[in-house]
Protein backbone atom coordinates (compact mmCIF):
# COMPACT_ATOMS: atom_id res chain seq x y z
CA UNK A 1 0.00 0.00 0.00
CA UNK A 2 1.77 3.04 -1.21
CA UNK A 3 1.15 6.39 0.33
CA UNK A 4 1.07 9.08 -2.38
CA UNK A 5 1.95 11.92 -0.02
CA UNK A 6 4.90 10.00 1.41
CA UNK A 7 6.06 9.27 -2.14
CA UNK A 8 5.86 12.94 -3.11
CA UNK A 9 8.37 14.11 -0.47
CA UNK A 10 12.01 13.23 0.14
CA UNK A 11 12.74 9.95 1.92
CA UNK A 12 15.78 11.59 3.51
CA UNK A 13 15.68 13.04 7.00
CA UNK A 14 17.11 16.55 7.31
CA UNK A 15 16.23 17.20 10.95
CA UNK A 16 17.29 14.22 13.00
CA UNK A 17 18.62 13.45 16.46
CA UNK A 18 17.35 16.73 17.84
CA UNK A 19 16.69 17.27 21.54
CA UNK A 20 13.06 18.41 21.36
CA UNK A 21 10.70 17.03 24.00
CA UNK A 22 9.02 13.73 23.14
CA UNK A 23 5.95 14.40 20.99
CA UNK A 24 7.02 17.93 19.96
CA UNK A 25 4.70 19.45 17.36
CA UNK A 26 7.22 22.06 16.22
CA UNK A 27 9.83 19.48 15.30
CA UNK A 28 7.21 17.57 13.31
CA UNK A 29 6.41 20.73 11.32
CA UNK A 30 10.10 21.48 10.65
CA UNK A 31 10.85 17.88 9.70
CA UNK A 32 7.90 17.66 7.29
CA UNK A 33 8.64 21.03 5.65
CA UNK A 34 12.31 20.17 5.10
CA UNK A 35 11.34 16.84 3.55
CA UNK A 36 9.15 18.70 1.09
CA UNK A 37 11.77 21.30 0.19
CA UNK A 38 14.68 18.88 -0.24
CA UNK A 39 18.45 19.12 0.31
CA UNK A 40 18.98 22.48 -1.43
CA UNK A 41 17.15 24.39 1.25
CA UNK A 42 18.81 26.95 3.51
CA UNK A 43 16.94 27.27 6.76
CA UNK A 44 17.05 30.23 9.10
CA UNK A 45 15.98 29.83 12.71
CA UNK A 46 15.75 32.56 15.32
CA UNK A 47 15.98 31.96 19.06
CA UNK A 48 13.25 29.50 19.92
CA UNK A 49 12.67 25.83 20.52
CA UNK A 50 13.82 24.60 17.13
CA UNK A 51 17.18 26.36 17.26
CA UNK A 52 17.65 25.37 20.90
CA UNK A 53 17.03 21.69 20.19
CA UNK A 54 18.73 21.59 16.80
CA UNK A 55 22.07 23.22 17.50
CA UNK A 56 23.66 21.86 20.67
CA UNK A 57 27.30 21.98 19.62
CA UNK A 58 28.69 19.49 18.73
CA UNK A 59 25.27 17.86 18.19
CA UNK A 60 24.08 19.58 14.99
CA UNK A 61 20.80 18.11 13.86
CA UNK A 62 20.20 19.82 10.53
CA UNK A 63 21.87 18.21 7.55
CA UNK A 64 20.97 21.07 5.22
CA UNK A 65 22.62 24.48 5.48
CA UNK A 66 21.13 26.08 8.50
CA UNK A 67 21.77 29.23 10.48
CA UNK A 68 20.60 30.82 13.71
CA UNK A 69 19.41 34.38 13.23
CA UNK A 70 18.83 37.19 15.68
CA UNK A 71 15.47 36.87 17.41
CA UNK A 72 13.93 39.80 15.54
CA UNK A 73 15.66 39.19 12.24
CA UNK A 74 14.45 35.88 10.81
CA UNK A 75 12.86 37.44 7.75
CA UNK A 76 15.67 39.95 7.15
CA UNK A 77 18.25 37.15 7.34
CA UNK A 78 16.16 35.17 4.85
CA UNK A 79 16.27 38.18 2.55
CA UNK A 80 20.05 38.24 2.86
CA UNK A 81 20.43 34.48 2.32
CA UNK A 82 18.26 34.60 -0.78
CA UNK A 83 19.99 37.68 -2.24
CA UNK A 84 23.46 36.36 -1.41
CA UNK A 85 22.93 32.95 -3.00
CA UNK A 86 21.35 34.54 -6.07
CA UNK A 87 24.31 36.92 -6.39
CA UNK A 88 26.71 33.97 -6.21
CA UNK A 89 24.91 32.36 -9.13
CA UNK A 90 22.96 29.65 -7.33
CA UNK A 91 19.61 28.90 -8.92
CA UNK A 92 18.16 25.77 -7.39
CA UNK A 93 17.66 26.64 -3.73
CA UNK A 94 14.96 27.72 -1.29
CA UNK A 95 15.37 30.05 1.67
CA UNK A 96 13.03 29.00 4.45
CA UNK A 97 12.59 30.39 7.96
CA UNK A 98 11.20 28.55 10.95
CA UNK A 99 10.19 30.92 13.70
CA UNK A 100 8.01 30.29 16.71
CA UNK A 101 4.93 32.29 17.57
CA UNK A 102 6.85 34.82 19.67
CA UNK A 103 9.55 35.16 17.03
CA UNK A 104 6.86 35.86 14.45
CA UNK A 105 3.98 37.76 16.03
CA UNK A 106 5.90 39.75 18.64
CA UNK A 107 9.63 40.08 18.16
CA UNK A 108 10.02 39.34 14.45
CA UNK A 109 6.93 41.03 13.08
CA UNK A 110 8.62 44.13 11.66
CA UNK A 111 11.27 42.11 9.82
CA UNK A 112 8.54 39.85 8.41
CA UNK A 113 6.47 42.84 7.41
CA UNK A 114 9.49 44.37 5.66
CA UNK A 115 10.26 41.17 3.78
CA UNK A 116 6.67 40.86 2.57
CA UNK A 117 6.76 44.52 1.55
CA UNK A 118 9.91 43.89 -0.56
CA UNK A 119 8.32 40.66 -1.83
CA UNK A 120 11.55 38.71 -1.35
CA UNK A 121 11.46 35.18 -2.67
CA UNK A 122 11.37 33.35 0.68
CA UNK A 123 9.18 30.96 2.64
CA UNK A 124 8.42 31.92 6.21
CA UNK A 125 6.94 29.19 8.39
CA UNK A 126 5.62 30.09 11.80
CA UNK A 127 5.25 27.04 14.04
CA UNK A 128 2.72 28.23 16.55
CA UNK A 129 2.81 26.55 19.95
CA UNK A 130 0.97 29.47 21.48
CA UNK A 131 3.57 30.74 23.99
CA UNK A 132 7.32 31.21 24.49
CA UNK A 133 7.84 27.52 25.22
CA UNK A 134 11.63 27.49 24.94
CA UNK A 135 12.14 29.84 27.86
CA UNK A 136 9.52 28.17 30.02
CA UNK A 137 6.01 29.04 28.81
CA UNK A 138 5.57 32.82 28.80
CA UNK A 139 2.63 34.50 27.08
CA UNK A 140 3.16 35.59 23.49
CA UNK A 141 0.95 37.52 21.10
CA UNK A 142 -0.41 34.22 19.83
CA UNK A 143 -1.41 32.80 23.22
CA UNK A 144 -5.18 32.26 23.14
CA UNK A 145 -7.68 33.72 25.59
CA UNK A 146 -7.76 31.93 28.94
CA UNK A 147 -4.48 30.04 28.59
CA UNK A 148 -2.38 29.74 31.73
CA UNK A 149 1.28 30.64 31.25
CA UNK A 150 3.94 31.66 33.76
CA UNK A 151 3.31 35.34 32.95
CA UNK A 152 -0.48 34.99 32.83
CA UNK A 153 -1.14 32.74 35.82
CA UNK A 154 -4.63 31.56 36.62
CA UNK A 155 -5.94 33.03 39.85
CA UNK A 156 -9.38 33.50 41.33
CA UNK A 157 -9.72 36.96 39.78
CA UNK A 158 -8.03 36.64 36.43
CA UNK A 159 -8.26 33.31 34.65
CA UNK A 160 -5.08 33.19 32.61
CA UNK A 161 -4.51 35.25 29.48
CA UNK A 162 -7.02 38.09 29.11
CA UNK A 163 -6.31 38.91 25.47
CA UNK A 164 -7.30 36.96 22.37
CA UNK A 165 -4.87 35.45 19.89
CA UNK A 166 -3.40 37.84 17.35
CA UNK A 167 -4.57 37.09 13.83
CA UNK A 168 -1.16 36.65 12.16
CA UNK A 169 -2.54 34.94 9.05
CA UNK A 170 -4.74 37.88 8.17
CA UNK A 171 -2.01 40.35 9.16
CA UNK A 172 0.29 38.67 6.61
CA UNK A 173 -2.53 38.60 4.06
CA UNK A 174 -3.22 42.30 4.61
CA UNK A 175 0.21 43.01 3.07
CA UNK A 176 -1.19 41.56 -0.16
CA UNK A 177 1.33 38.74 0.10
CA UNK A 178 1.52 36.32 -2.90
CA UNK A 179 0.70 33.32 -0.71
CA UNK A 180 -0.30 32.84 2.92
CA UNK A 181 -1.80 29.79 4.54
CA UNK A 182 -2.80 28.32 7.87
CA UNK A 183 -2.21 24.68 8.72
CA UNK A 184 -2.05 22.26 11.60
CA UNK A 185 0.37 19.39 12.25
CA UNK A 186 -2.72 17.28 12.94
CA UNK A 187 -3.56 17.59 9.24
CA UNK A 188 -0.08 16.87 7.94
CA UNK A 189 -1.26 16.11 4.38
CA UNK A 190 -2.74 19.57 4.14
CA UNK A 191 0.45 21.13 5.57
CA UNK A 192 2.72 19.20 3.17
CA UNK A 193 0.57 20.19 0.24
CA UNK A 194 0.71 23.86 1.29
CA UNK A 195 4.52 23.82 1.59
CA UNK A 196 4.69 22.18 -1.86
CA UNK A 197 2.46 24.89 -3.26
CA UNK A 198 4.47 27.65 -1.56
CA UNK A 199 7.73 26.32 -3.00
CA UNK A 200 6.39 26.85 -6.53
CA UNK A 201 5.25 30.44 -6.02
CA UNK A 202 7.58 33.40 -6.56
CA UNK A 203 7.63 36.03 -3.83
CA UNK A 204 7.10 35.92 -0.10
CA UNK A 205 5.16 32.97 1.30
CA UNK A 206 3.85 32.77 4.84
CA UNK A 207 2.59 29.53 6.40
CA UNK A 208 1.20 29.51 9.91
CA UNK A 209 1.13 26.00 11.36
CA UNK A 210 -0.33 25.05 14.72
CA UNK A 211 2.20 22.87 16.52
CA UNK A 212 1.06 21.71 19.95
CA UNK A 213 3.63 21.61 22.75
CA UNK A 214 2.90 18.74 25.18
CA UNK A 215 5.01 20.42 27.87
CA UNK A 216 3.38 23.84 27.66
CA UNK A 217 -0.15 22.74 26.85
CA UNK A 218 -0.27 20.12 29.57
CA UNK A 219 -1.13 17.14 27.39
CA UNK A 220 0.47 13.70 27.08
CA UNK A 221 3.32 13.43 24.53
CA UNK A 222 1.28 11.01 22.40
CA UNK A 223 -1.66 13.46 22.23
CA UNK A 224 0.10 16.06 20.04
CA UNK A 225 -1.42 14.97 16.75
CA UNK A 226 -4.88 14.36 18.20
CA UNK A 227 -5.04 17.74 19.89
CA UNK A 228 -3.78 19.46 16.71
CA UNK A 229 -6.65 17.77 14.85
CA UNK A 230 -9.17 18.63 17.52
CA UNK A 231 -8.35 22.36 17.52
CA UNK A 232 -9.42 22.40 13.86
CA UNK A 233 -12.44 20.13 14.39
CA UNK A 234 -13.83 22.26 17.22
CA UNK A 235 -13.47 25.43 15.15
CA UNK A 236 -10.87 27.27 17.24
CA UNK A 237 -8.45 27.05 14.32
CA UNK A 238 -9.12 26.84 10.61
CA UNK A 239 -7.27 25.65 7.52
CA UNK A 240 -7.26 28.40 4.91
CA UNK A 241 -5.24 29.98 2.14
CA UNK A 242 -4.79 33.50 0.82
CA UNK A 243 -3.87 33.81 -2.82
CA UNK A 244 -4.47 36.37 -5.59
CA UNK A 245 -6.22 38.69 -3.19
CA UNK A 246 -8.82 36.26 -1.91
CA UNK A 247 -9.25 33.94 1.05
CA UNK A 248 -10.14 30.31 0.63
CA UNK A 249 -11.23 27.88 3.31
CA UNK A 250 -9.74 24.41 2.77
CA UNK A 251 -11.53 22.39 5.37
CA UNK A 252 -14.95 22.97 6.83
CA UNK A 253 -15.92 20.71 9.70
CA UNK A 254 -19.50 19.47 9.15
CA UNK A 255 -20.25 19.99 12.78
CA UNK A 256 -17.95 21.47 15.40
CA UNK A 257 -16.86 19.19 18.21
CA UNK A 258 -17.29 20.37 21.78
CA UNK A 259 -15.03 23.33 22.63
CA UNK A 260 -15.03 22.56 26.34
CA UNK A 261 -13.92 18.97 25.65
CA UNK A 262 -10.95 20.36 23.70
CA UNK A 263 -10.11 22.87 26.43
CA UNK A 264 -10.50 20.54 29.39
CA UNK A 265 -8.02 18.06 27.94
CA UNK A 266 -5.24 20.58 28.43
CA UNK A 267 -3.55 21.57 31.66
CA UNK A 268 -3.31 25.20 30.56
CA UNK A 269 -7.13 25.50 30.36
CA UNK A 270 -8.08 23.35 33.39
CA UNK A 271 -9.03 26.41 35.48
CA UNK A 272 -11.56 27.86 33.00
CA UNK A 273 -15.09 28.42 34.25
CA UNK A 274 -18.24 27.81 32.19
CA UNK A 275 -18.41 31.57 31.59
CA UNK A 276 -14.89 31.64 30.14
CA UNK A 277 -15.76 28.74 27.87
CA UNK A 278 -18.85 30.64 26.73
CA UNK A 279 -16.66 33.64 25.84
CA UNK A 280 -14.37 31.35 23.83
CA UNK A 281 -17.31 29.67 22.07
CA UNK A 282 -18.87 33.05 21.25
CA UNK A 283 -15.60 34.35 19.78
CA UNK A 284 -15.32 31.15 17.72
CA UNK A 285 -18.83 31.65 16.33
CA UNK A 286 -18.07 35.28 15.54
CA UNK A 287 -14.91 34.25 13.71
CA UNK A 288 -16.78 31.66 11.65
CA UNK A 289 -19.41 34.20 10.77
CA UNK A 290 -16.59 36.34 9.38
CA UNK A 291 -15.11 33.33 7.56
CA UNK A 292 -18.41 32.39 5.96
CA UNK A 293 -18.90 35.97 4.80
CA UNK A 294 -15.41 36.71 3.49
CA UNK A 295 -13.81 33.38 2.59
CA UNK A 296 -14.39 31.33 -0.50
CA UNK A 297 -15.80 28.09 0.89
Amino acid at each position, binding site marked *: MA*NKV*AESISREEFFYGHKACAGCGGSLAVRAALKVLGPNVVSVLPAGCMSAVGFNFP*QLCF*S*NNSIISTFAGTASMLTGVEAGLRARGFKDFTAVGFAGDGGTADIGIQALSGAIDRNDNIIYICYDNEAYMNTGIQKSGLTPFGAKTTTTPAGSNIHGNIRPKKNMFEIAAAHDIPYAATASVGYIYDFIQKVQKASKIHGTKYIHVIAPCPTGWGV*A*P*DATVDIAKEVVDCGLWYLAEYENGSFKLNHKPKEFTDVSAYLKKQGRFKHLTDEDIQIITASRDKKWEFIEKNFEL
Partner: protein
Amino acid sequence: MRPYIREKKDITFDDVPENTSFEAGYLTTVNSGWRSDRPVIDTTKCVSCEQCYLYCPDGVISIIDGKAAIDYDFCKGCGICAKICKIKAIEMEAERK
Protein backbone atom coordinates in the same frame (compact mmCIF):
# COMPACT_ATOMS: atom_id res chain seq x y z
CA MET B 1 21.65 13.08 3.97
CA ARG B 2 20.36 12.02 7.37
CA PRO B 3 22.43 13.41 10.26
CA TYR B 4 24.46 10.55 11.73
CA ILE B 5 26.62 9.68 14.71
CA ARG B 6 30.31 10.49 14.20
CA GLU B 7 33.22 8.68 15.69
CA LYS B 8 34.28 10.15 19.00
CA LYS B 9 37.71 11.71 18.91
CA ASP B 10 39.65 13.91 21.25
CA ILE B 11 39.29 17.48 20.15
CA THR B 12 42.50 19.44 20.14
CA PHE B 13 42.59 23.20 20.28
CA ASP B 14 43.17 23.33 16.52
CA ASP B 15 39.91 21.45 15.89
CA VAL B 16 37.77 24.04 17.62
CA PRO B 17 35.94 25.96 14.89
CA GLU B 18 37.28 29.48 14.36
CA ASN B 19 33.85 30.89 13.71
CA THR B 20 30.38 29.75 14.62
CA SER B 21 29.96 27.39 11.68
CA PHE B 22 30.45 23.64 11.77
CA GLU B 23 29.71 20.50 9.79
CA ALA B 24 25.98 19.90 9.20
CA GLY B 25 24.31 16.77 10.48
CA TYR B 26 27.05 16.06 13.03
CA LEU B 27 25.63 13.95 15.85
CA THR B 28 27.51 12.82 18.93
CA THR B 29 24.82 11.51 21.27
CA VAL B 30 21.71 9.33 20.98
CA ASN B 31 18.27 9.99 22.47
CA SER B 32 17.34 6.43 23.46
CA GLY B 33 17.90 7.16 27.15
CA TRP B 34 14.87 9.49 27.18
CA ARG B 35 12.50 6.64 26.63
CA SER B 36 10.41 4.88 29.27
CA ASP B 37 8.20 3.03 26.75
CA ARG B 38 9.27 1.69 23.40
CA PRO B 39 7.06 1.23 20.34
CA VAL B 40 7.17 -2.29 18.94
CA ILE B 41 5.92 -2.95 15.41
CA ASP B 42 4.06 -6.13 14.61
CA THR B 43 5.37 -6.65 11.07
CA THR B 44 2.74 -9.29 10.31
CA LYS B 45 0.04 -6.64 10.78
CA CYS B 46 1.86 -3.66 9.18
CA VAL B 47 0.43 -2.77 5.76
CA SER B 48 2.89 0.09 5.14
CA CYS B 49 0.31 2.89 5.06
CA GLU B 50 3.17 5.15 6.26
CA GLN B 51 1.04 7.14 8.70
CA CYS B 52 3.57 6.57 11.49
CA TYR B 53 6.40 7.58 9.16
CA LEU B 54 4.67 10.85 8.28
CA TYR B 55 3.64 11.78 11.82
CA CYS B 56 6.83 10.85 13.74
CA PRO B 57 8.27 14.12 15.13
CA ASP B 58 11.75 12.59 15.28
CA GLY B 59 11.69 10.91 11.89
CA VAL B 60 12.91 7.62 13.33
CA ILE B 61 10.47 5.45 11.36
CA SER B 62 11.44 4.32 7.90
CA ILE B 63 9.86 1.84 5.53
CA ILE B 64 12.14 -1.11 4.90
CA ASP B 65 10.94 -3.90 2.56
CA GLY B 66 7.37 -2.65 2.80
CA LYS B 67 7.29 -2.64 6.61
CA ALA B 68 7.77 0.15 9.13
CA ALA B 69 11.04 -0.03 11.08
CA ILE B 70 12.18 2.08 14.03
CA ASP B 71 15.63 3.51 14.75
CA TYR B 72 15.69 2.92 18.51
CA ASP B 73 18.82 5.05 18.95
CA PHE B 74 16.79 8.20 18.39
CA CYS B 75 13.22 7.19 19.30
CA LYS B 76 12.04 9.11 22.38
CA GLY B 77 9.02 6.87 22.94
CA CYS B 78 6.39 9.62 22.62
CA GLY B 79 3.81 7.09 21.40
CA ILE B 80 2.37 9.14 18.52
CA CYS B 81 3.00 6.25 16.11
CA ALA B 82 1.08 3.77 18.29
CA LYS B 83 -1.85 6.18 18.48
CA ILE B 84 -1.91 7.04 14.78
CA CYS B 85 -1.76 3.40 13.66
CA LYS B 86 -5.30 2.51 12.62
CA ILE B 87 -4.73 -1.22 12.48
CA LYS B 88 -2.95 -1.26 15.85
CA ALA B 89 0.24 -2.78 14.54
CA ILE B 90 2.33 -0.71 16.98
CA GLU B 91 2.25 -1.30 20.69
CA MET B 92 4.05 0.54 23.48
CA GLU B 93 6.05 -1.72 25.78
CA ALA B 94 7.76 -0.68 29.00
CA GLU B 95 11.53 -0.39 28.68
CA ARG B 96 12.11 -1.95 32.11
CA LYS B 97 9.81 -4.73 33.13
